[in-house]
């Protein structure tokens, strides 16, 4: 009994020393977001244009293909070797005696491409010389057709004495950018031919030596990583074909509803910046929306050949030739194609160089600024009709709170908006767990009303409508904060007529904006 009392006494004393948590409730308010969404930001890339400062036109251009010289001509890694072997023996060769080898030609393997002249923009040349003579020898390696600023490529090496069995060597690697290389050979009428020349001279301060036919004076030149930014010749008639894939990611957020757009022009523009004839063909175009509906662009222009003339001029005066293929409501199903709101687009094309062969006599020319481009262009007035067009986007959410520490109990998010777009919006918030299961749904207390329902602001020159939307964050939602891993914001858009309320196409006015000021009020408990 006595021990139980002591244990009880001890426990009571310990318990008496322990302080309970002190708690009290507080109410906090703070702004969160203050910003204005304007279309002006998109004017920079010429996506949106205006001609009358009142209405907006969409002028969307995207480049699907951009080919330069290096994409069609590749100089392979090439090694050339030149050997000078005396035809007979020479005794008592005096110091400082020179021997000059004849010019030799070497082929670049370019298949059906026949180049007469190139200019290198990058690349390396590795020169290696071999000396089998028992005295030092000066080697001069020359590439007669390769010049830079008018000076022929020439390198001289002083190589130590060697033997026939084990010749001594000298080696050097040099940059080969900026060289003009004539590939017409010694005759000036050939192609893909590189010339080389070797000169040797025995050491003027060396001994008298003997040279025989077994002495091979040799050099090797390795060309690697050669890139050219100018070429002249015949570029062959290779075919370039591919299917371009591009996505419009934000359209994946559309989960329901319809959109209505006005008559639209879609143009494929082919630019030829090379002095070579082109034949091309759009093989197909289709898009697939988030509901997996695919619409193909149907037109007689699809699958039909078109031809593009060579560019004119040269260097700075180069003028690309252009060919455009237009799709409109009369020659295609373009509106249906665009209203499908495709997120994934496929455009197939085929291009062939020199479709009629070498009719230029090897006068094809490509300059550093030469490009072959395929662009797509869409032009239409920015006029949209939305009928329950619903977008949903999901964000990661990670906000834990410990109820035994300072924590929130409930809250109210208020969005004060000034809308100058003729579009109304009904927002909903979904709070989901890690399995994307919706745990809580919070409806906005009202919609962000269309500017059509507002009044005219003389200063901005726009109709504007103010709205205040509240999102109540109830205690059960706040209690589940640590379980919530995703928040989805869903917005349903409509373009109602101000009088009838029926959704119809509305023209987005120039300067339209949506000003948003968001604040939050939180009731929290301080735990100390």
């Amino acid at each position, binding site marked *: 009994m006595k021990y139980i009392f002591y244990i009880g*006494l001890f426990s009571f004393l310990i318990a008496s020393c322990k302080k309970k948590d*002190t*708690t009290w409730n*507080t109410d906090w308010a703070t702004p*969160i977001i203050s910003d204005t969404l304007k279309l002006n930001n998109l004017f920079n890339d010429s996506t949106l244009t205006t001609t009358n400062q009142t209405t907006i036109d969409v002028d969307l251009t995207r480049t699907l293909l951009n080919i330069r010289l290096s994409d069609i001509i590749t100089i392979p890694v090439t090694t050339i070797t030149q050997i000078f072997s005396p035809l007979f023996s020479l005794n008592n060769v005096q110091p400082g005696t020179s021997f000059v080898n004849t010019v030799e030609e070497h082929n670049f393997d370019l298949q059906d491409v026949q180049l007469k002249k190139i200019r290198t923009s990058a690349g390396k040349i590795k020169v290696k010389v071999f000396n089998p003579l028992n005295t030092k020898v000066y080697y001069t390696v020359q590439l007669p057709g390769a010049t830079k600023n008018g000076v022929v490529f020439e390198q001289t090496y002083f190589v130590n004495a060697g033997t026939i069995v084990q010749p001594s060597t000298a080696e050097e690697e040099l940059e080969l950018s900026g060289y003009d290389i004539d590939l017409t050979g010694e005759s000036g009428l050939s192609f893909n031919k590189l010339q080389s020349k070797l000169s040797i001279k025995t050491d003027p301060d060396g001994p008298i030596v003997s040279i025989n036919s077994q002495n091979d004076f040799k050099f090797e030149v390795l060309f690697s990583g050669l890139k050219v930014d100018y070429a002249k010749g015949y570029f062959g008639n290779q075919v370039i074909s591919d299917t371009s894939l591009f996505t419009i990611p934000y359209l994946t957020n559309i989960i329901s509803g319809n959109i209505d757009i006005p008559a639209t022009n879609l143009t494929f523009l082919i630019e030829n910046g090379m002095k070579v004839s082109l034949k091309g063909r759009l093989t197909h175009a289709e898009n697939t929306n988030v509901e997996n509906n695919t619409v193909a662009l149907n037109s007689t222009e699809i699958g039909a050949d078109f031809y593009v003339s060579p560019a004119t001029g040269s260097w700075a005066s180069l003028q690309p030739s252009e060919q455009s293929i237009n799709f409109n409501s009369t020659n295609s199903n373009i509106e249906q194609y665009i209203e499908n709101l495709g997120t994934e687009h496929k455009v197939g094309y085929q291009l062939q160089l020199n479709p009629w062969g070498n009719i230029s006599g090897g006068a094809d020319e490509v300059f550093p600024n030469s490009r072959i481009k395929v662009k797509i262009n869409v032009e239409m007035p920015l006029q949209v009709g939305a009928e329950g067009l619903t977008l949903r986007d999901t964000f990661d959410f990670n906000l834990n709170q410990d109820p035994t520490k300072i924590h929130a109990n409930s809250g109210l998010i208020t969005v*004060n908006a000034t809308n100058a777009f003729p579009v109304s919006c009904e927002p909903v918030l979904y709070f989901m767990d890690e399995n994307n299961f919706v745990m809580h749904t919070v409806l906005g207390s009202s919609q962000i009303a269309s500017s059509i329902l507002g009044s005219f602001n003389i200063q901005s020159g726009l109709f504007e409508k103010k709205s205040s939307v509240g999102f109540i964050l109830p205690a059960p939602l706040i209690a589940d904060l640590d379980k919530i891993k995703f928040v989805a914001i869903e917005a349903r858009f409509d373009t109602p007529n101000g009088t009838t309320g029926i959704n119809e196409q509305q023209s987005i006015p120039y300067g339209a904006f949506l000003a948003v000021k968001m604040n939050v009020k939180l009731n929290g408990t301080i735990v100390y």
Partner: protein
Amino acid sequence: MKKITIIFFLLHGLLSNAQSWLPIQQDTLLEKKHEFIFSGTADYAGTSLHKSLTQKLFYGGEITEAIKDKSLKLHRGINQFGTDLTAEIEYRNFQVNLFGKSTWGFTIKAGYYSFINALYSKDLFKLAFYGNEGFIGNTASISGTQFTAYGYHKIGFGWLDKKSKSSISLNVYSLSNYSDALVRTGEIYQSQTIDSLSIAFDGRASFTNGTSSFKGFGAGLDADIRLKVPQKKNKVIYYQFLAKNIGFTSLRESMTRYSGDTVFTFTGLSFNQVLNGSSFLDSNFSVLDTLGIQKSQLKTTVFLPGFLQFSKLVDTQSNRKLQEFYGIRLFLASAYTPLVFAGLDYRIPLGKINALNIGLNISYGGFSKFRFGLYSSVRIKNLNLGIASENIIGKTGQSILFRLQCAY
């Protein structure tokens, strides 16, 4: 069993109200060879914090709206609050002749002290206990806020005059915790439509880090000077000048200081900031950098909140049963105003040596305004036990003091 039960209830009473005690300023010294004094105090007081709220802060529990409202009604522009928690033990040796002098003895003492000193505005109280929602459309001012908190240990050795009971001791201190805050200018403006929040701040806050009990070492002194003033008809009056913990500590480890002189206006984030993760929603976002608050480390000297008191003592040898006492007290702390006190002591003899003293007092100043106190002490042979409160009816504080002397 009966003794255990008494101790049980006594300890329960102590532990459920406070953790330590302070000495009653009554001197009932016994002329013996050895003397032990155990003393402690738990005293908190303020001008405006209702004790119903303070008790919740100290002992836990929910601070309801009603409790907060009680305190809010008491608040004025600038308010004071302070706590003084002390536990001390002292040994006095009257037998040894220190340095060969027959009238000199020595004293050894040790103790732990915790002291909080705060000056704050009414708006700071509202912000802390109600939040900022009540300031929508208004400015909350926390300018002039000062806060200092100390926790330190002491060991002292000193000289004792056997005849007058005066003593002076040199002490060494170990600082276990220190923090301070000073807001020279602090204003928070919340617009009516909650679309902007402006903060003007010029101030600093510092605190020691870690769990070590030896964050700083220092030195100081205590002095207990008894003055015997002769009166007419061979009567005397005893006065006491008491100084405790007049000293300093120097930090061994750097403490962290946040300081800033900035004006910051927050009108909300842009969509780009939210989407690009450059806002406070992003883990890499530094709120302090945004507010212009600098963080630094510094070692400094901390002056202790010394205690000074001059008072008339109650003479236990007097023939008068009813005696007056009075005095003035000061802590070296910004929120503590000089405290004057006066009271009456009535002695009830319990035999030749034993006696029971009861008394009441009134004081003004310190961390609060008027306070009424009550005490009693009983002397039984070699023991003297005193228990008191310096604030028995106040709304804004509580006080309990305990002193046990044993002489033989």
